[in-house]
């Protein structure tokens, strides 16, 4: 018997595996069978429903899961890991909104603000070009630009920290 907490779409689901084929999600119990089709794709049978699901392991606790045309990122932790993670979150209350990351790989086309500039929420800070489209990256919160880590013309990877607001 093992217990996990899966976070999906900002919802927490507690999952209990008992025995070989019984699994419950938030107390709802299913009879499950899992088959590996090929590559990253699986056939999951829950009671009498069949799901074809593709899953890519992102790191030790995250999967990218695609089912019924929808793509989800799932975060999976044991109950103990989940408790520990909660404690850490409560300690450091840094808002993620204060740090702007590149949503996709691309090139910095224009930087409209400088270090120290005041910005209001929704104001455009950087224009990132990717796939020939200009993407406006706006301030998620109002504040002052603390740092800008990129230069115009620079290529960035997805997740690269572009600027921070204080």
């Amino acid at each position, binding site marked *: 018997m093992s217990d996990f907490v899966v976070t999906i779409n900002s919802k927490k689901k507690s999952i209990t595996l008992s025995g070989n084929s019984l699994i419950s999600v938030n107390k709802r119990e299913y009879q499950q069978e899992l088959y590996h089709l090929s590559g990253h794709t699986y056939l999951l049978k829950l009671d009498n429903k069949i799901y074809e699901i*593709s899953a890519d392991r992102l790191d030790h606790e995250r999967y990218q899961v695609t089912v019924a045309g929808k*793509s989800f990122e799932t975060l999976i932790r044991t109950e103990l890991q989940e408790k520990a993670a909660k404690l850490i979150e409560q300690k450091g209350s840094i808002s993620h909104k204060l740090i702007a990351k590149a949503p*996709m790989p691309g090139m910095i086309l224009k930087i409209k603000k400088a270090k120290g500039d005041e910005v209001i929420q929704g104001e455009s800070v950087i224009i990132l070009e990717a796939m020939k489209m200009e993407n406006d990256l706006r301030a998620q919160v109002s504040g002052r630009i603390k740092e800008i880590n990129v230069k115009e013309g620079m290529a960035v990877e997805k997740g690269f920290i572009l600027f921070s607001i204080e």
Partner: protein
Amino acid sequence: MFRKILIANRGEIALRIIRACKEMGIESAAIYSEADKTSPHVKFADEAYYIGESAASESYLNKEKIISLALKIGADAIHPGYGFFSENESFISEIEASGITFIGPSSKSVHMMGSKTSARQLMQENNVPIVPGTTSPITSLMEGLNIADSTGYPILLKASAGGGGKGMRKVESQEEFASALEATKREALKSFADDAVYIEKYIENPKHIEVQIFGDKHGNYVHIFERECSIQRRHQKIIEEAPSSFVKEKIRKKITLAAINAAKACGYYNAGTIEFLMDKNSDFYFLEMNTRLQVEHPVTEMISGLDLVKEQINVAAGNELSFRQEDLKINGHSIEARIYAEDPENNFMPSTGKLIEFQIPSGPGIRVDAGFTRGSRISLYYDPLIAKLAAWGKTREEAIERLKRALAEFQIAGVTTNIPLLKAVCDNYSFKKGEFDINFVEKEFADGLQSKTASSEEIENAAAILSALLKTRSTSAEIKNTITDNNKWTGLLYE
């Protein structure tokens, strides 16, 4: 007829052209960039030639390399597909000078229609109605502000050399004008190497109706009815259909006649599309002419039974059109959905990655044009179009139901796709009734897509359960990975 055609494109459209070549017994030569080494269009063609680095400017947009390659390999024609060089006047005139046939219009027709401003002027002279605004580019910020004031806000800023929804911006007020002009000019320069921008009155809530026309080198012209392409995001079409349920027979007569007049005005041959905006009174205005094959040509093929690519090749070879206007009639209804690698829940941000799974739908009335397979990479170098799904039905209702059914058969993983949005459109009441305009996506999904494309708890549970099962198996999975895919013992070892 041609002996060998060089296809100066990639992805699904390259594949589409290769298929036509094969059916006509013409040799096909593909070109490919670094990123496309293993792409389907390379595998399908009779011959494939490496053309350069992944960046389009080094490969698919390298004029010299493409033309000298065509000469070297003895290709007697070049098909440009859509995008890239398809509407590039200097590319076409260089091909004309080289003695190779360009499968498309003459450089002269492209020149006449290429600049939106001169096209507007030409249409005005030929009694094709145009959207109010300027018929020449703006020369200064001051002039632009004055014209915008007299036209009346909101206005649209458009790149003279633009197309495909790029280089276009809506301006609501005077305050926005300067920065919008700057951005439009920059995007225009980048995408079309020309920063000329003009002003058009913003028509409120129009439909996008376009007419497929075809001309040959003997002065014959036909139209192959209209398409409705109002379902757009970021000014780019995502769902197109033929015919339009809004266009009545009387209007169809008028708009197709205007389209043929537009084509005649520029001495056009090849497949072409005249795009119009249509307001709620069924008044229509010339928007632009696309002097090439359209992305959405399959819906026209499905209701007419024609093969537009083969007809393009036929006409380019100097033959007369293989059919006449009176041979054509509308058979049923067809709707196409464009499957994009983008996130509709995050402002349609493009998504890149490797397609770890790629299965396409089939069954009655379904056609899929895809340029990728499992293992393909969606890179940031090119357009994020993954596939086109076209459904045919006896009626519009049947076509929608088939489209919806087929959308659910896709299994694409590795990138985020817009499939949830496309499904939500199929379920939308206004869409089903045919009551929509080009602002449909913004209007109907204004409060964010999440609520409309919400996944059921059931689906989320399945995703969560799979994650948990994989997590518990992840240690033993490493051993399993050493077993090859097609080893027949694999199944047993899993149990």
